[in-house]
């Protein structure tokens, strides 16, 4: 009886570590949700703001006033939802190298093509499919 939840946890952990589903890229976008469901913009905002989950504000600035320490290695996220469609934003987060082979922005939903990844992160994507959808849902709201 008490073993079951533990098993569920273990299986859950394995699912997160597994190779991600292959997103369908159409031109410069991934038109459909990775999970088949829309993301949650409020959760997405928290992920973008977080230094340990999204890491976005290491490089970007954005309209997240409570985070005083923001980066200037990349354009501001403000207005991203006016500049790009939902599908374009999704591809940008999943694997920006599809848009710019030399980009320094990490591919958030890809495990291949990486070297010397720390053991704790090996074989894992930076964000889960759900988290990618949450981030996309937030970015879409960033109209100028």
């Amino acid at each position, binding site marked *: 009886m008490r073993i079951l939840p533990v098993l569920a946890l273990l299986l859950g952990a394995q699912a997160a570590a597994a190779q991600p589903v292959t997103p369908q890229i159409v031109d410069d976008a991934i038109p459909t949700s990775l999970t088949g469901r829309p993301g949650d913009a409020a959760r997405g905002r928290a992920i973008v703001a977080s230094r340990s989950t999204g890491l976005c504000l290491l490089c970007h600035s954005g309209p997240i006033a409570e985070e005083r320490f*923001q980066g200037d290695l990349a354009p501001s996220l403000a207005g991203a939802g006016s500049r790009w469609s939902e599908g374009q934003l999704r591809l940008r987060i999943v694997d920006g190298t599809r848009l710019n082979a030399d980009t*320094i922005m*990490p591919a958030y939903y890809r495990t291949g093509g990486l*070297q010397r990844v*720390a053991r704790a*992160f090996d074989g894992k994507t*930076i964000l889960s499919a759900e988290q990618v959808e949450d981030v996309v849902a937030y970015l879409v709201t960033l109209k100028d």
Partner: protein
Amino acid sequence: MTARLLAFGLALVFAASYAAAQAGADKRRSGYQDMGEALQKMQDDDTANPGMLFVQLGGQLWAKPAGAENKSCADCHGVAADSMKGVATRYPAIPQGADRPVDLEGRINMCRTENQKAERLPPENRDLLSLEAYVAHQSRGMPIAPPYGPVVDAFRAQGEGIYRRRQGQLNLSCAICHDDNAGKKLAGIVIPEAHPTGYPIYRLEWQALGSLKRRLRNCLVGIRAEAWSLDAPEYVALELYLMERAKGMKLETPAVRP
């Protein structure tokens, strides 16, 4: 007579402006220049710089007999201000009879095991860092002057390869941050040019003296790359390349860093 004097004078003027142009052309910045004024003052004032406490401890250890030989560093090397002056500017280097470069702490540990017949001090050990700080402090203000030769050059090239290769889950290279984006802000922190001018450093975040390896491991962990073990040759290779990039810049040991 006057023509020759004039020519001589002109030559002097040219030499002076050439030197000025050279100095002006060197845009490299030590991490010191990226710190706020308060931290710069702390580093400059020997009574406020916490690293100086470790230099003093190193000075005591220098004179203390150790190991089965019961010899102190001073027994063989005399006054450090003379014998160790300039030594840190050319490390990592290949010791006499060795086939690979060692960093300064590695060289000190060689003297422990071979000359004092004492046990090796482990990485980040306080006594080892203090001895290293004491030795490197004797070169404070002197320009970095790396050694050259086929073997050491090959290790340096390996270090440059590591520096330029992307790695870790974030898929970044040292060069992306420290060459291409130096001076910009990573989550509010100015990215320095990564010159190894101050090591070992007193880092406020650590509340301790720490080695260049420890600093490099912080950067590796930041990009979610597997950090090499502390005795791995990769750090020596990287340090060789960083010292080459910083050739001619002045040593600051013990530096203070945020």
